[in-house]
């Protein structure tokens, strides 16, 4: 890296930290929550992009991995008293009752459990291609959800878990998002990352170049699931309450949306898109609520938010097929080139 770039990077990171400190003390809890969600969706988006964007596997099982992470983290961080309050229909199994671990190990265990599950699921599923893989992973994610609805003495069934400790804060979510970004960048630029991209480009050619398809697909799938689990854990401990309905297919779809809009195969795109989509989805809530124009009150139309959102998605997919960034990444050089290009472009416009 050039000296200039290092300095610029350090400056941007400091600005971000200052911003977070400011946000932490000045923003109201709703705004902080949105910021947290943005960071968490960055992690989720990156993990899905590794599987779908970089490796080219069409996996739709993300909600399942998130559910595992969320439940494991929640159950491991809840004190015994809270657990007993929650499990009033059927007592919690004894081996879970008194286990309470700190947040970080709980998150990691959540991620590892998701990864282990991905490994077990991947063994049969990753031999499938395209749509079959999509439907099979979607199926597994639904099975996880249905199992969680029915294991009353472990997950509290359909009632879900409430009063989960609100451990997730800006430092946790942004810290882990930053680590995820660094990890993904490093992975993607390594020989392994290039091998994954080769699989995306052409499976048959990749295999002929000595890349074991199954092993490498599994690698992407398991790592992706790990980060999905961590993201799920952060999400559960941010919201404070989880239940199986939360982890329906729509959750996977939201993450898919982020990576498609940002550009499948671009880390930068995913990060930007995670922030835009998450805050956009929050601000579009206006559409579902009633609007007071002073002289007239427009009633809110429930569902309109998602109608607008899904039409936006389709428009983007149809007209901007490569998303925001395509497979390109941010670089300081690229930014400067862009900045230089703009003025000259403007000048030409004026001159005409």
């Amino acid at each position, binding site marked *: 890296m050039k000296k200039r770039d290092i300095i610029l990077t350090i400056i941007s990171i400091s600005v971000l930290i200052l911003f977070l400190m400011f946000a932490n003390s000045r923003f109201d809890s709703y705004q902080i929550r949105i910021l947290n969600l943005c960071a968490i969706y960055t992690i989720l988006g990156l993990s899905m992009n590794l599987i779908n964007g970089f490796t080219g596997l069409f996996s739709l099982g993300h909600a399942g991995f998130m559910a595992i992470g969320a439940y494991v983290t929640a159950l491991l961080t809840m004190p015994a008293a809270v657990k007993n309050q929650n499990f009033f229909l059927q007592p919690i199994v004894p081996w879970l009752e008194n286990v309470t671990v700190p947040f970080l190990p709980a998150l990691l265990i959540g991620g590892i459990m998701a990864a282990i599950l991905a490994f077990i699921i991947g063994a049969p599923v990753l031999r499938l291609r*395209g749509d079959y893989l999509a439907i099979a992973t979607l199926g597994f994610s639904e099975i996880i959800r249905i199992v969680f609805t029915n294991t009353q003495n472990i997950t509290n069934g359909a009632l879900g878990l409430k009063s989960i400790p609100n451990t997730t804060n800006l430092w946790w979510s942004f810290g882990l998002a930053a680590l995820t970004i660094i990890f993904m960048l490093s992975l993607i630029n390594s020989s392994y990352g290039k091998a994954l991209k080769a699989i995306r480009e052409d499976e048959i050619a990749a295999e002929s170049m000595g890349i074991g398809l199954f092993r490498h697909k599994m690698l992407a799938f398991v790592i992706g699931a790990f980060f999905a689990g961590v993201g799920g854990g952060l999400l559960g401990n941010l919201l404070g309450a989880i239940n199986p309905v939360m982890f329906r297919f729509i959750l996977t779809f939201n993450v898919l949306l982020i990576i498609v809009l940002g550009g*499948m195969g671009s880390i930068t795109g995913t990060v930007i898109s995670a922030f835009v989509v998450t805050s956009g989805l929050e601000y579009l809530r206006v559409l579902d609520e009633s609007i007071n124009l002073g002289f007239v009150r427009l009633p809110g139309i429930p569902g309109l938010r998602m*109608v607008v959102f899904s039409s936006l998605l389709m428009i983007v997919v149809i007209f901007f097929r490569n998303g925001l960034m395509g497979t390109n990444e941010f670089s300081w050089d690229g930014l400067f080139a862009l900045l230089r290009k703009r003025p000259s472009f403007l000048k030409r416009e004026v001159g005409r």
Partner: protein
Amino acid sequence: MSFSLFMQHLTNGISLGSLYALIAIGYTMVYGILRLINFAHGEIFMMSLYFAFYGVAIFAMPWYVSFIVTVIITCMLGMLVERAAYKTLRDSPRITVMVSAIGASFFLQNLAVVLFGGRPKAFPTVQIFTDVIKIGTVSLQRLTLIIPVATIMLLYSLLYLVNKTKTGMAMRAVSKDHETARLMGVDVNRTITITFGIGSILAAFGGIMWGMKFPQIQPFMGVMPGLKCFIAAVIGGVGNIYGAVIGGFILGIGEIMLVAMLPQLTGYRDAFAFVLLIVILLLKPTGIMGEKISEKV
């Protein structure tokens, strides 16, 4: 389990299986011709129920008029979805088209919430279908017998259309190879649109009968049947009409029997289809009737 109870479950399973089969055909036809899952098919099915509901309950049409209108409007909706979400992306990577299709599906779901409200509505009952009759010791709704018969009739008309008419020939040609079909003078885009239309007609018939059997409708009701019916199509061998029918029956009868035999698994009823899917994909990835398609190197 007594014989009459068993027969009761079996007839239930057969009629549920028939409904799955009707919807599964729509998936299989679109997959056969485009090699894509029509993610919006479950939502087209859901919309058909609302059309029928509005016809009878709001516009006070006689049920048969309402049902005919429903079939026509649903067919048009299916073709519209194809024009909007698929045609524009004909040469795009499959993943893009899939995302667009999922987008269309969410759009329709939420459009239904906006237009019809999120609360469940009661589907109108039509006496002659829902009357309970008794055959020996087995008592069942007349509908339970009508559904399989109607399904078989629809299936035969479909097979006639696919195998004996010019449109059917065009559909078969396009499913083999778009480019060659085009060179032979087949209007590929028109054929694809028609395929969506036919799939939607079957979904509408399925929807109407579904509504009479399970008379509660809400905007997200298409999701589960949609997924299950795609699974039925995969189990039977996607792209194959007979396969979809077989898969539909396996799924419908299996689901009902599972709950009947092992009531403690009732909560896992919806998981049955997914487990079956994964088992089939492992044992015979191309399904029961499917042919192996491998990429040319």
